[in-house]
């Protein structure tokens, strides 16, 4: 056999090949959120159509919901945002799909709750009108981000019209060093290949260092694939995956679980399979990494200097200069959250750094867990107390300060260290300067008041 994992998933879901080399691919699950899903659902209703399998369509509220701990069901964090929430709720009821509403115990960021609830499963195809759907490939799901019109198509027809993308494998050899995280690996890869480096490929992450990652870490790695122009990312499911999924709300049970895992074991790339691009990254070369510019590719290790050929526009937006030492930069804000780094292990890593410490004067520090389940688990371990004692705000689940949609955010011109995935101009608010890093680096920087690695982590 010489098929890649991606080939196997693609072929088993191909209904037929249409004219022009486009494949009709069967879609097992669709996930929506209130920001882009609402318009898809309304459009379906207006056109008099309906979902072909409403039981396999899910919608949650994450993007513009309020993150205040005492929020009400229609509260948005952006002015006028409540219409997206109410419209989504109404449309979900009319179309009979699964609604995970603002105040539900399972609410959270779509890419956090889909794995957490066992909606994302190995071997399934899953689409969502959200670019970070690639995260879910961490479980061996063929999951990719689409637009709203395509979401309508997937919901109504149970299929997508899509041309098979080229394929890339990135093998990470060796083992990540102590204190080096999946986030650092993701940034290192994007920095190495550039913001368009994945060339619209489906990217399989493989190798010892990847196999050693927990599911939460794999989700972080896959999350950022879209930031270097991948069609999506995928990791072969293994025992780690099966152990993670067993017993979750939507995973198969009993006899069905046995059947499922028996099939999932074959979801691997055959030894003789070939990729359009086959790259190798040495885990040893990966250091704690932070971005200096306005693209995730503009990243450097935390003890190094802004490059001498750095892009002038990015430098001017970020208020930094060529040759400047990144770890001298004073920060005004710190954010831990987003589908990249807001799961329990992320909060634990940050809390370990924060324990018994205080956020530096003048630093606005915020933590927003990725889901209400993560929030509850963190509270059960007392992590919320550590965050609050250190001076962090402790929010209710959602995308929160990951992106700006109007409403409260960091002030223009402020420098923010953030565990999110995009440092584009204005991403966190007009004029806000975002530096991407791992949760531990965000926590350490919040305490120091400047960009820094946690103590004991050599960079």
């Amino acid at each position, binding site marked *: 056999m010489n098929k890649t994992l991606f080939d196997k998933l693609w072929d088993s879901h191909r209904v037929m090949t249409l004219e*022009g080399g486009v494949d009709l691919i069967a879609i097992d699950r669709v996930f929506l959120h209130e920001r882009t899903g609402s*318009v898809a659902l309304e459009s379906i209703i207006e056109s008099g159509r309906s979902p072909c399998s409403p039981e396999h369509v899910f919608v949650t509220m994450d993007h513009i919901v309020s993150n205040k701990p005492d929020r009400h069901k229609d509260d948005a964090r952006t002015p006028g945002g409540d219409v997206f929430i109410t419209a989504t709720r109404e449309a979900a009821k009319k179309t009979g799909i699964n609604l995970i509403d603002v105040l539900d115990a399972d609410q959270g960021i779509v890419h956090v709750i889909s794995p957490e609830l066992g909606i994302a499963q190995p071997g399934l195809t899953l689409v969502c009108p959200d670019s970070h759907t690639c995260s879910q490939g961490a479980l061996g799901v063929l999951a990719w981000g689409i*637009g709203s*019109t395509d979401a309508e198509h997937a919901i109504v027809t149970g299929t997508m019209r899509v041309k098979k993308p080229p394929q890339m494998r990135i093998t990470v050899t060796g083992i990540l060093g102590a204190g080096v995280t999946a986030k650092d690996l993701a940034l290192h890869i994007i920095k190495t290949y550039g913001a368009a480096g994945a060339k619209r490929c489906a990217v399989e992450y493989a190798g010892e260092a990847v196999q050693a990652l927990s599911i939460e870490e794999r989700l972080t790695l896959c999350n950022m694939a879209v930031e270097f122009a991948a069609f999506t990312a995928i990791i072969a499911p293994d025992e780690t995956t099966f152990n993670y999924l067993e017993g979750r709300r939507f995973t198969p049970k009993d006899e069905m679980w046995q059947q499922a895992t028996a099939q999932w074991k074959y979801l691997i790339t055959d030894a003789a399979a070939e990729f359009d691009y086959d790259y190798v990254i040495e885990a040893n070369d990966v250091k704690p990494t932070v971005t200096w510019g306005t693209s995730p590719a503009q990243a450097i290790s935390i003890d190094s200097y802004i490059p001498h050929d750095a892009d002038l526009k990015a430098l001017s937006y970020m208020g930094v200069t060529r040759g400047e030492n990144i770890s001298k930069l004073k920060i005004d804000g710190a954010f831990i959250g987003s589908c990249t780094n807001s799961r329990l292990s992320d909060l634990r890593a940050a809390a370990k750094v924060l324990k018994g410490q205080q956020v530096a004067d003048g630093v606005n520090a915020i933590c927003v867990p990725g889901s209400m389940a993560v929030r509850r688990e963190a509270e059960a371990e007392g992590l919320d107390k550590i965050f609050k004692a250190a001076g962090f705000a402790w929010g209710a689940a959602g995308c929160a300060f990951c*992106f*700006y*949609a109007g409403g409260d955010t960091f002030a223009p011109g402020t420098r923010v260290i953030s565990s999110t995935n995009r440092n584009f101009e204005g991403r966190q608010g007009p004029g806000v300067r975002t530096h991407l890093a791992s949760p531990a680096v965000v926590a350490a920087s919040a305490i120091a008041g400047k960009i820094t690695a946690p103590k004991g982590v050599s960079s």
Partner: protein
Amino acid sequence: MMPFTTHTGTAAPLIRDNIDTDQIIPSREMKSVSKTGLSDGMFAGQRYLNDRIENPDFVLNQEIFRGASILLSGKNFGCGSSREHAVWALKEYGFKAIIAESFGEIFYNNCVRNGILCVTLDRTAIAALGDIVTIDLPHQRVDEIPFEIPLGDKQMLIEGLDGIDLTLQNETEISAHFAHDRVIRPWAYS
């Protein structure tokens, strides 16, 4: 959807790499659950100064490019957020085609679904284009320069087809696939 065959129009150069969908339509400009009313917010961050006064430096505010129907750009145009609002805003403004070095994957597909043609050309070819450009999709030419486009996308655009209607013509094959799959992977339906 309006079919796209040939088009001649003003081509506005916004030659930069990595123009993401939040620059095309900032999230704060997405005010209602609708595909319309978005063109006013298009490129708002660059197009307006404070109080929504036009920024004279922005290309679309310059007299010859006002109302352009073709946009020229650099690498990775439309990367970032999947929001189709970026395409709806461009379309409502009157853009029919975008010519760039490369495109964000989701943005590209969103364009095809909305009848906007994305043409990939190299940097030198884009730089050499004049203010008025003619695109001939059936013959795959921008002025005299040939370009590549996947056949499926070309057909959708030329015929102005709605993807759902088109796909539902294959309902028999789709049902057969799912019936068969239910037997092979019952767990996926459990």
